[in-house]
């Protein structure tokens, strides 16, 4: 096992009701590296992400997680409270005291919506709010499940540049995406 490695997967398999989703996957993610998980719909990309996070148990194989700080995760569900304002949601994400908060709120065009409830925002705006968790993360490892879905071109570019910067400061990224991205990454193709 490499000392530089944050996540190591050895022969990981997963099956549901005798239906193999993926079989004997092995990979590792080192510091400052990105892993792009690709595959068709239903190939098990999100399941693999959940296995890496420890939310789902693999049927076979092992995942070794050596990241010391907590993992920053952005999933299909945004973990936002519809009945709360953006400001309250930011407080719930424990980002309200972050020194760069207003800078990112401004970049993402969310400043004028701070007093509105999340339910009054569009899907894309909600996604932007959820992205604050990524932009203001203090983790070694970012795990992002389809981070580009619902984003406009401008936010797409902001996110890509941000992820490139994160790699430069030796952080690691695991992400799934259907869209070709401009991030230098190792590719893990899952085929059923």
């Amino acid at each position, binding site marked *: 096992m490499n000392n530089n490695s944050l996540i190591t997967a050895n022969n990981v398999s997963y099956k549901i009701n005798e239906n193999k989703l993926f079989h004997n996957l092995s990979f590792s993610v080192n510091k400052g590296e990105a892993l792009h998980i690709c595959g068709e719909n239903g190939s098990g990309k999100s399941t693999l992400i959940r296995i890496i996070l420890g939310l*789902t148990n693999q049927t076979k194989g092992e995942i070794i997680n050596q990241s010391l700080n*907590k*993992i920053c995760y952005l999933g299909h569900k945004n*973990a936002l*409270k519809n009945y709360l304002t953006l400001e*309250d949601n930011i*407080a719930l994400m424990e980002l309200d005291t972050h020194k760069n908060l207003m800078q990112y709120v401004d970049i993402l065009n969310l400043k004028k919506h701070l007093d509105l409830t999340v339910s009054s925002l569009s899907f894309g705006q909600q996604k932007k709010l959820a992205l604050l968790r990524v932009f203001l993360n203090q983790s070694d490892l970012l795990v992002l499940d389809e981070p580009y879905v619902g984003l406009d071109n401008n936010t797409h570019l902001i996110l890509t540049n941000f992820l490139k910067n994160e790699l430069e400061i030796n952080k690691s990224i695991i992400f799934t995406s259907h869209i070709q991205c401009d991030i230098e990454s190792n590719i893990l193709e899952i085929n059923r």
Partner: protein
Amino acid sequence: MKILKLELLKLRKKTRSWLGPILVFWLIMIAYPLTVEFLQEKLEIGFFSVLWIAILISMMLAAEDIFTEDFNDGTLEQMMIKSSPFSILVSIKTLTYWMLIGVPISVLSFIFSFGTTENFSLSLMILPLSLISSYIFLNLFVLGNALSLNKGSVLGALITMPLALPVLIVLGKSLTAIQLDINFISFILLLLGCLSIIMVAIPLVVSYIIKAHLE
């Protein structure tokens, strides 16, 4: 403390979740005298039975959506990934609900008890009984809610309701002890003993159940 503050913020803004059970309790207690004659003795006969049942029902309603919303919007996944033990988070969440719902209901129990019996010392002894029993009931229904997380809260409440019956029996016996002026403290200690076991065991069990649901 930080988690408690955040949970309080969430629950405070979700008025229906905390005000609903308190209003249901209040309505049951208001409705009770209307169903019997307004004679002091007649009112007192069934009052405490109604009081315990009202606390039980209110706590059942309080626990109704304790995890459902967090489960549906992905908050539970985020909590699970955090390094702090998930069972502690469950304990804090339950404590928050009890503080915002259980404590006001217990204070109302004291007020209604005094209004009905006109006996201050008796009503004062009802207060710790209400506080402890509401916390026990809430924990039991939290377990029920976790068990039936994606199947509706009624099923969970039905599963855990039998566990509340021994507590109701102890509450009845402790009231008899108060009225006969015999050792009432032993009943409080018995309830506190139950509560201490429940407070440790239920969050642990609930955290495993929720993990299984998330899988």
